């Protein structure tokens, strides 16, 4: 195993469960989640020489993973929600909330990259604010600002949809 492969092995060991946590919440099943993460890692591997350090590589993987996940979502849009296997929750499913959630998901997928990843890693995954910021290669403060801006965009998009309805 050469030096680059060692780096990727470290990355896998340290980050896999966090990556899975975020990507799963987008694509909705374990198999697709692993595919997406593998794709992101492979893309990083192909350009392994161009990263300055481990942190650089790590943020890149976190970024690409979100892109790949939403790409997958878009690809299977037509096949509806067949791929999703979320746990049935005890709370009763009211249709209005479900619809809102679907709209929110769409709005998130349409956010610019920077804000989309802020929402995914900052709000949805199992990472604290400082952990997420470190992984995205920015300060905690910057991350909060991005999340704030992202929320504003989401609110706006959702309001427009409400009006359209």
């Amino acid at each position, binding site marked *: 195993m050469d030096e680059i*492969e060692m780096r*990727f092995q470290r990355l896998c060991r340290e980050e896999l469960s966090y990556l899975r946590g975020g990507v799963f919440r987008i694509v909705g099943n374990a198999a697709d989640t*692993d595919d997406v993460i*593998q794709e992101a890692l*492979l893309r990083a591997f192909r350009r392994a020489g161009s990263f300055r350090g481990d942190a650089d590589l790590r943020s890149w993987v976190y970024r690409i993973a979100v892109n790949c996940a939403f790409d997958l979502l878009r*690809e299977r849009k037509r096949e509806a929600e067949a791929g999703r296997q979320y746990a049935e929750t005890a709370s009763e499913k009211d249709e209005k909330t479900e619809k809102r959630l679907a709209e929110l998901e769409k709005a998130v997928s349409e956010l610019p990259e920077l804000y989309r990843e802020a929402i995914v890693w900052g*709000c949805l995954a199992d990472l604290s604010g400082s952990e997420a910021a470190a992984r995205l290669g920015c300060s905690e403060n910057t991350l909060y600002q991005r999340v704030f801006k992202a*929320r504003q965009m989401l609110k706006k998009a959702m309001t427009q949809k409400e009006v359209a309805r």
Partner: protein
Amino acid sequence: MNDMLLDGLLTQWKTERAPRPGDFSSNASFERRFFTAVRIEKQKRPRKAPRPSDLVNLIRKLRPAFEPSERVCASFSLPPAAMAASRIHCCCSAAPGLIGGLFDDAPVPGSAPVFDTEEYKTVGERPFVAVTTNPLSTFGADVDSAMYANLRRMVLKEDRLPPPEAVRLEELINYFGYDYPQPEGKAVMRPHFASGAAPWAPERRLLLIGVQTPVPDREKLPASHYVFLIDNSGSMDDVFPMVREAMTALAGNLRSGDKVSIVTYGGDVRVLLEGCSDVSTVCEVIAKLEAEGCTPGGEGIQKAYALAEKHFIPGGNNRIVLITDGDFNVGASSEAELVEMVKAKRDTGIYLTVAGCGMGNYKDNKIKMLANKGNGNAFYLDSMREAKRVFVHGMTGNMYALARDVKFQVEFNPAQVFAYRLLGYELRDMTDRDFSDDKKESGTVGQGQQLTALYEIIPADAAASVKNAAVPKMPPLKYQTASASGSEELLTFRIRWREPQGKKAAREEAFSVPGLPPEDENWNWAAAVAEAGLALRSSAFAPAASLKHAAKQAQQHLGEDPSGDRAEFLLLLRRAAELSR
């Protein structure tokens, strides 16, 4: 929508969609899988890092005109055509900086250039033409979209920019659907005009000519006989599952009276199904398809035509659907022979659709040429989505011919237009007199299809301000005056076409455009796509065209976009803009 509601939704998303403990396999098994993939990646990636001497030899072979002393220096600034000829376009266009690295003896880590064997036909750009000397512009119909899917593969899946010569503007523009008015009554085609300031050069106008054919009633379409000619050679291995899916989807859309034959060519040419009209049998045969052997392509095509003739449906839609990566490497495979054969069959009323797929081995030029000569169209299947788009959603237009040898001619009024330039359609170039010559073949247009052409024009009143545009200087003509001067008309647009079958004489229609038509949403979108295409081609005529600006425009004019195609293009543009930085 307020903060509280948003908070609630986000929390719900986070908690309800969390993975359960048992969902995932162990970290170790993920790791194992990943490193297997890495090993495969390593095997196929760097191939052989070429030494400087290899490259010099290659260039020497391909460009005998170079002086020996010039060779190495010249290769830093080879024109795109020469880059294409030496087949190193992949690394050259993706990262111009790498070229220097090629000449160091030690390969730069992580940047070993990949020689790929994909081939593209090099097409030069059309220049501006002065209306006083050349008032007519003639081109053949072309509604292929093979290049777009190929572009998507490179940018979104392989993280690289396409070589400039792989970008064909007309295909890019025609990939998208537009909102053109339907033809009225029995009219076969209806043109639509729009114009506005060219985004990359505001002093020039960008003129859109869109043609719409009537959307057919599916029930009234003639019966079809499809001969699927499937390349199941080893090189197709990766894409076979997709091919199977695409065909199953099409088989599901067959109507009673339709027939299917299936021929494969891999190790040898085999007829799996002949004139069958039972959908379940068709699906069964499709399910058993597998990739094997090498490729005697020519023989397969002969067999397919023989079957098509045997089960010919008079007055129906008789079509061969060739699915291949174009790597005809055994048998009668010289391009000339194949083309001659396909050409000889074009008057029999049998059409040829070519669907290209696969990576690395993909031979774009061969596929496109076959389709053009065989009265058909070409597609590139890069994903299940594209396969369905071509075989299912676009079936009427792509599979049912409405008119053939469709030619367009625009006559510009010199009193209104100083010079013009047609964007794209380089492979469909025609001389002006070919327009009325019915022996000169041209492209086919299907039912419910759209065709869009863009002209960049320099208005007569702006001629002085654009002296430096690349309009070739001509001596002022002594005896020709702008005869129509005084006329307010901008241009006359003529369409000429023949019935899909038979030898009936061609029909012709002319439409005059009174003045510069206004902008509309169709134009806005087409202009953004054109700008992107010009930027990807690094067009000499539009140095100001930028991917970033195109993306911005595209975002503003997404429109309804029911198919999601436009949104996807936007994504592609943003990625390409990042890659080009």
